[in-house]
C-alpha cells in the first residue's frame, strides 16, 4: 500500500496553486489534510502525476466572524471546530458534528474544505453545511464564485470543481436566535463512515425547520415534506413518519426496506432531539 510515483509541489499562493492544479494534460490533486487522499494514493485507486500541497496557504486558514455569518477557511480542521477554536454561532451543532467524525487522529489533520471537495456521500460536513444553508467560495481560473452547498455538490464524489479550482472556505449564515438542532447518525462503529446521518435545525421560533438526510444516496438532500410537517407544530409520529416516507420516496427511492427503516429512525431521532432542545 505505497503510492505510485508522483511529482510534488508546494505553491506559496492560491493563484500559484490554481495554476498548478489546472495544468493541461497532467493529472493533479490538491492535498490539505490528506486523510482521504493519502489512503487512496496508497491503495493506488487514485493515480496522479502531480500532488499540489495547499496545506500551508494562509489564505485558506482564515476564520472570522462577520456581522451576519461565520467564515471558515477551507483548511479549518475538524479538531479546531470540535475544540471550539472557531466561532460557534450554532449552539454547538458544528462542534457536535465535528466530534463524531472518524477518530481524533483523523480530525487533527482532516479539513472541512477537503471533506466537502471530496463529496463522499457518507461524510458529515456536506450534510451539516446543507442544513445550515452555507455557501462555498471557490477560486479558479475564471475568478471567484459563490455557490450554495446544494448546488456545489452534484453527486457521489462529484462537485462543480473544475481543473484549477480551489475551495477557499465556507460562509455560514448566523441564525436569528439560538439554533435548535438535532443530530442522529448510524455507523457500523464509532468513527466508521455513516450509513445514515440526519440533521434537523430551526433557525428561530417562526422560521421553517430544515431537515437533511445524508449517507443515503449519492448526496445529502433536504427533506421538505418532513420539514413542512414539523413546521405545522405538534405532530403525531404517524403523520411525521408519512412525511418522512414521502421524502425518502422523492429523493432516496433506491434505498431498500432496511435502509428506509433506518433512515426514518435517524430522522425521527434528530427531529425529536431538536424539538426537545
Amino acid at each position, binding site marked *: 500500500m505505497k503510492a505510485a510515483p508522483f511529482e510534488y509541489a508546494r505553491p506559496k499562493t492560491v493563484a500559484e496553486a490554481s495554476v498548478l492544479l489546472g495544468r493541461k494534460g497532467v493529472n493533479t490533486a490538491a492535498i490539505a489534510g490528506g486523510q482521504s487522499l493519502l489512503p487512496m494514493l496508497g491503495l*493506488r485507486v487514485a493515480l496522479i502525476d502531480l500532488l499540489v500541497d495547499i496545506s500551508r496557504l494562509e489564505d485558506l486558514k482564515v476564520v472570522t466572524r462577520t456581522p451576519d455569518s461565520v467564515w471558515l477557511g477551507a483548511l479549518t480542521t475538524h479538531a479546531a471546530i470540535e475544540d471550539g477554536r472557531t466561532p460557534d454561532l450554532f449552539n454547538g451543532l458544528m462542534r457536535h458534528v465535528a466530534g463524531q467524525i472518524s477518530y481524533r487522529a483523523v480530525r487533527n489533520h482532516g479539513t472541512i474544505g477537503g471533506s466537502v471537495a471530496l463529496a463522499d456521500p457518507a461524510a458529515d460536513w456536506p450534510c451539516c453545511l446543507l442544513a445550515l444553508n452555507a455557501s462555498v467560495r471557490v477560486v479558479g481560473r475564471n475568478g471567484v464564485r459563490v455557490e450554495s452547498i446544494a448546488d456545489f455538490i452534484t453527486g457521489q464524489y462529484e462537485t462543480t470543481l473544475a481543473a484549477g479550482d480551489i475551495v477557499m472556505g465556507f460562509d455560514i449564515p448566523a441564525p436569528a436566535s439560538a439554533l435548535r438542532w438535532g443530530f442522529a447518525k448510524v455507523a457500523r462503529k464509532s468513527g466508521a463512515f455513516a450509513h445514515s446521518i440526519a440533521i434537523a435545525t430551526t433557525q428561530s421560533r417562526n422560521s421553517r425547520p430544515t431537515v437533511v438526510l445524508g449517507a443515503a444516496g449519492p448526496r445529502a438532500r433536504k427533506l421538505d415534506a418532513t420539514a413542512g410537517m414539523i413546521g405545522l407544530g405538534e405532530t403525531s409520529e404517524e403523520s411525521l413518519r408519512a412525511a418522512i416516507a414521502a421524502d425518502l420516496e422523492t429523493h432516496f427511492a433506491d434505498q431498500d426496506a432496511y435502509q428506509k*427503516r433506518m433512515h426514518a429512525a435517524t430522522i425521527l431521532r434528530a427531529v425529536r432531539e431538536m424539538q426537545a432542545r
Partner: protein
Amino acid sequence: MAVHSAADGWIGASLLRKEDARHLLGHGMFVADVRIPGTQDIAFVRSQMAHAQVRGVRVPAGAPGRVFTLADLGPLNILEAGPELAAHRHSPYPALADNRVRYVGQPIAACVAPTRAEAEDLVDTVEADLEELPAVVDCVEAMRPGSPRVFEQWPDNAFIAGTVKEGDPDTLASAPIRLHRQFRMNRQATVSLECRGSLAYWDHRNDELVIYLSTQGGHVARRGLAQALGLPENKLRVIAPDVGGGFGGKNRMMPEDIAVAAIAMKVGHPVRWIEDRREHLIASVHARNHYYDLIVSADSDGTLLGVEGEVYIDAGAYSLWPTGSFMEASMASRNLTGPYRIRHLNLKTFTVATNKAPMGPFRGVARPGACFAIERLVDEVARELGREPFDLRRQNIVTASEMPYQTAAGMRLDTGDYVAALDTARDMIDLPKIRARQKRGEPDGRAIGVGFAFYTEQSGHGQVEWVKRKSRVVPGYESANARMLPDGSVILHVGTQNHGQGHETTLSQIAAHELKIDPSRISVRYGDTSTTPFGFGTFASRTIVFAGGAVARASRSLGEKIQRIGAHLLQTDMANTRLEDGAVHGPSGSVSFAEIAQAANIRQEHLPAGIDPLLDVTSTYEPKETGGVFSYGTHAVVVAVEPDTGVVEILDYAVSEDCGTMINPMIVDGQVQGGIAQGIGTALYEEIPYDELGQPLATTFGDYMVPCAPEIPAVRMAHLVTPAQTTEYGVKGLGEGGAIAPPAAIANAVADAFRDIGASFNETPLTPRRVSEAVEHARRNKGGAA
C-alpha cells in the same frame, strides 16, 4: 502500582509486566524494525481472481532477476499438510502459483526492489494471464453434486468428511421437543496488531540462512522451512523478535515465508516482506466460517437430550502446514455438547475446500462456533418451553460432584464448579433487576436483553490428545533451560514464543518462586532457534501449563544443585538447608547464590567432590494427564437494541471464570478482557463477505470493522479458583476463553430483547442490518399469525 514483597510469594502476584516498558516507549523490535544493510523489499503479484488457470506471467523487459515466479524459486518441496489420515485429501500449496490460482490474493510472483514502493511499481508492470474458472464460494453449495471443484482430481470438495455418533441418537426422534435451527459464523481475519513479515539472508560466517520471522513458533517454522527449501535444519536459523500478536494467524507455514527464504538464497542480499493490512485481510490466515444445521432434542421438563445434524467448515483453498484446519470440524463437534449432560450426538462434519484464502487457527479455534450453536439452542429450547434460559442452563449443566465428567464426545472435564460460575455471573449481572427493567420498557424505544453463555476451554493437552488428532507435529511437551551466571543472575531460555502474553513476567515469577529470588534477577529469552531449546511455540493456551511446567522443573533442578553446593560451602548436610531470599541458609549462617554461582562457574575448586561445574539445566515437561485440563466460565451481557436501525449497544458485561491457579492475576484479567474484545468483534463487527465470484468485499479497515475502545466495555470479572490436579501449581491455560463465549452471549442477549416476538439471531456478526431485518421478519410473522 502495588508493591509486591517476596514474602507474599511470586505465584499469584499481579506484577507489572516486564514487557510493557519497552513497548510503551516504542523500543520494541519487530521484524519491520530489523535493519540489515542492503535489505531489499518484496511485493507480491497476487491473483485478482478466485479461481483461474494461470496461462502465463509476463515479466517486463529490464526486470530479470527482480521478478520471481515459481520456476525461479526452485527446487522447492511441497509440504504435505493436514492430519496423517489417508482420508484427508492432499491440497499441494506452492509458494507461488503453479498453473492454477485458487483464491483472490494467492501469490503468483514476487518482485524485489530497494523499497516497498518500488517493488509495488514493479508489481504493476507484471501481467498475470488468468483464465477464469467457476469459483466455489459457499461451503454448503460446494458439497452439492455438480458443484465446481477446487481440485479437479477430488471426487467432491471435502478435504475430509466425518461422523460423530455417541450414545443412542436413534432415541431422539421421539423426544417431546425437537427444534431445527441453522447457525452461521462468518469468515474473519485474525487482525494481529503487527501483520506478518519476514526478513531473510544468507549468513556467510555461519554458513546458514537466517530468517527473522513474525511467528508463534520458530522451531516448528524452521522444520517446515527446512523441508520446503531442502536445507538441513542446522543451516537454518529462525529468529522471532518481538511479535505483535498472532492469535493463531502466525502459527502456520505460509507461502510468502517460503518465497522470501527461497529468494534470499538466490540473490546476494537480504530481502524482506512486510505484510500490509490489505494483504492481511485478503490473503492471511482466515478464521471462523462455520455453518451448523442442527436439531436439538429435549424432554418436556427441559432435560437436554441430544444434538443431530451437520457441521460445515469453510476451510478455504489449501491446508496450511502442519495441521491444516481439519481440527475445526472435530473440535466443533466434540464441543457441541458444551458443559451439559447431553448424551446423544449424531453429527456429520464436512471440512470443505472453497476458493477463499486458507483457514487457520484463531483464538478459540472452532469453539466460538460450537458455543454459539449450543448456547443459542439452549435459549431456543427455553423459549419453546417458556422457561428462563438461565434456569435451563443450571438444570442441565454438569455439577461439581460429577467431576471428572466424561462428555458424550469423550472429553474429560476435569475440575471445577460450573454451577457456581453460573450463579456468580447471574448475581453480577443482577438478572432479576434486568427482568424488572424490561417490564418497565425503555424511554428511548430501545429493547433491553440479557444473555448468558457458558464455555469450556481445553488447555494443556499433550501427547494423547494430539496423537488422537493425527497431528503431524505432536506438541506434547515443552522445554526450558535455566542457567545461573557467575553473579547469581538467571537466564531462562524457553521454546515457546511470547507474542503479547507476558511470558517474560509469568515465567520469571515461576522461576523466582522455585529459586526464591526476585523476578527482576531473572531474564526470559525465547524466539531464536540458535539459542533456545526445542519447543513448539505458543498456541492452544498451552504455554502456562507446558512452558510453565518446564520452567518449574528446570528451576527446581537448578535449585537443588545450588542447595547441594551451598550445603557443602556451609559445611552442613543438605537436609539442614533451605533456599531463601537468594541464598542457601543453614543452621549457622548462609551463603549467597552469587558465591555459589561463582564456585560453580569460575571457581570450581570450591565445588564438592563429584559435582560437575555449571548451573545449567534443561528440562522438559508434560502434565501427568495429557487429555487436557479445562478452564471454564460464564459470560453474562446486557444489551440495548434499537429495532429500526439494528444498532446494538453493550450496557454491561460480566464474567465469572475459573482458570485454576493464577500465576499473575493481572495478566489473567488482561487475557479475559482482550479475548472478549475479539469475541465482540466476532459477535457484532468482523466479517469478510465474498461476492458470488469469490471476491472478498472487506479489504481495508474502511470495510472490515474491528471493535475499538468505544465498542469494548470494561468487563467486570470474578475469578473462581479450582486448581487443576494434574499440572504444576494447578494452572490451566486461559488465553482463548474470553474469545469463545461473546458471540453466544451477545446473540442470546439480542434474542432475549425480542423474545416476545420470537426473533432469532443465528448469524454472526450481528450487524445492524441483520438485527433489524430479523426483528422485522419476526414482526411480520407475528402479525401474519395474529
